[in-house]
């Protein structure tokens, strides 16, 4: 249309503000990524393109160690939280609302409501007591802590999937003399699977990104990538941090894109 029309949905300055917001939202992240390719030692002066900092990060044993630990924790936490969240989602949907269901909801969503620092401190105290009483060290503490706060993130997409599910399919299976287990294995689970994968991916990302709870529950020498970075930030900054951040960022974006494609297809 050549003539200027009066658009009802347009409000003065809104579009400009929104575009500015998107620029401000991405500019710092893009700067961070750009400087990871900086040849210069400084994080302030551009010295040409180079992959040195990635090589350096790759050859840094502390980084390698922290990466492996981060992945190990995230995989374990995602598996545990998704397994129990799937069961809980099956238990709290598709049946008549029962007494105590609200209690279960509140329990599952509790990690979303309590400030992270409070959970972190409470686990610090608890694990301190357990470590002193049993003498058991190890990465298990961090894994269990992560499994707990990942449960709501795994639960929500699975529950959403279950609520949108057609109950008649299971009834049909039962009518055809399938045992409850066969019905679950061959009917419920395949339909549920995208929700389970989505839940597991969210749990994985949430675990991978955690700083506060890990910082308080880890023992000495148990740095994950985020806690390692937090420690480095107190010291001299080099583009190595940018390189590590960029890699972590890339991993998150890939997982999120997959998550969105996975959940969108089923709308």
């Amino acid at each position, binding site marked *: 249309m050549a003539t200027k029309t009066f658009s*009802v*949905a347009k*409000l*003065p300055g*809104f579009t400009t*503000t*929104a*575009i500015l*917001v*998107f620029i*401000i*939202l*991405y*500019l*710092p*992240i893009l*700067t*961070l990524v750009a400087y990871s390719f900086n040849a210069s030692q400084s*994080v*302030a002066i551009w010295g040409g393109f180079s992959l040195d900092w990635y090589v350096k990060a790759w050859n840094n044993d502390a980084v390698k160690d922290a990466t492996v630990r981060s992945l190990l924790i995230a995989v374990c936490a995602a598996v*545990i939280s998704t*397994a129990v969240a799937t*069961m*809980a989602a099956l*238990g*709290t949907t598709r*049946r*008549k609302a*029962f*007494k*105590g269901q609200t209690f*279960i909801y509140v*329990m599952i969503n509790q*990690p979303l*409501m*309590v*400030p992270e*620092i*409070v*959970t972190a*401190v409470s*686990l610090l*105290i608890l694990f*301190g*007591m357990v470590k002193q009483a049993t003498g058991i060290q190890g990465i298990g503490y961090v894994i269990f*802590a992560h*499994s*707990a*706060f990942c*449960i709501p993130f795994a639960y929500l997409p699975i529950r959403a999937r279950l609520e949108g599910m057609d109950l008649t399919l299971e009834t049909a299976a039962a009518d055809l003399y399938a045992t409850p287990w066969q019905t679950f294995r061959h009917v419920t689970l395949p339909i549920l699977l995208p929700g389970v994968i989505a839940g597991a991916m969210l749990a994985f990302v949430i675990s991978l*990104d955690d*700083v506060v709870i890990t910082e*308080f529950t880890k023992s000495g020498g148990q740095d994950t990538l985020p806690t390692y970075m*937090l420690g480095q*930030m107190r010291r001299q900054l080099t583009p190595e941090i*940018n390189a590590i951040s960029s890699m972590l960022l890339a991993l*998150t*974006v890939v997982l*999120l894109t997959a998550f*969105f494609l996975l959940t969108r297809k089923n709308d």
Partner: protein
Amino acid sequence: MSVAEKAQEAQSVRNGWLLSTPALIILTLFAVGPLMIVVVYSFLAPGQYGNVEWKLSLDGWRGILWTKDIFDDTYGLADANVTIFWRSVKLSILTTLLTFAVGFPTAWFIATRPAKSRALWLFLITIPFWTNLLIRTYAINEVIRNEGLLNTVLIKLGVISEPLRIIYTDTAVFIGMAYVYLPLMVLPLFAAIDRFDMKLLEAGYDLYASRMQVLRRVILPIVKPGIIAGSILVFVPSLGAYVTPRVLGGGKQMMIGNFIDLQFGQGRNWPLGAALSLTLLIIVTGALLIYVKYANRDVSNGH
């Protein structure tokens, strides 16, 4: 209801509980249970080298706001603590206001895009939401540092000759929190605006309302639930923020979260740390309860 139906229903409830049990056990052991220990600890005396002495004491709770005079044992207001509380509340409110001021136009912009590009814009808001908070804080640090992007550009342009000292100030923490929590404001606002019937705007304009009047009298009242949800979602994590003030405040511009951390570290006052944690938890729960009350009232009013 027949006996068989009743038995079937009881069985169904039992299965519901049984299936939820593993999740409940993990949450009890590693989320809810530890909070009970914090309650106990807040009523004990501090140990000399950290941890606690198993001796009943109210000093932890008293220490939140009061401090004992070392000379005459009288209690006076602890100025340092009041400063930290005030900073936390002030910065959290400012963060909520700023994110709303820029988040509302952004949410409106996304909601009024054509259906096809809307998903993309929404995705662009969601990516920062899910990316590592530490990385985003570090990214903002790169911009506002003394030798950061902002100062470099401003000096090159000749706007300033000396770098602006933003880093390690309240302003830095404020900018950082607004930056990292902005998506939490935009997403619920978008959800509310998305349900908004644009025909109401036509009706407003037909009745000779100005743009500002339409915004104030038609749009804002209807999207209020989204505004409340967004404000809570930003205010709550701001108040409990730990990483952002630590990285951008440089250890001096402490907020409640860092103050709690201090008690378990150098401060060696675990009962005070426990009492502070519970105080934070109580404030946050209060904010959430207000939200639930509002949300339910709006539902029962038929909005």
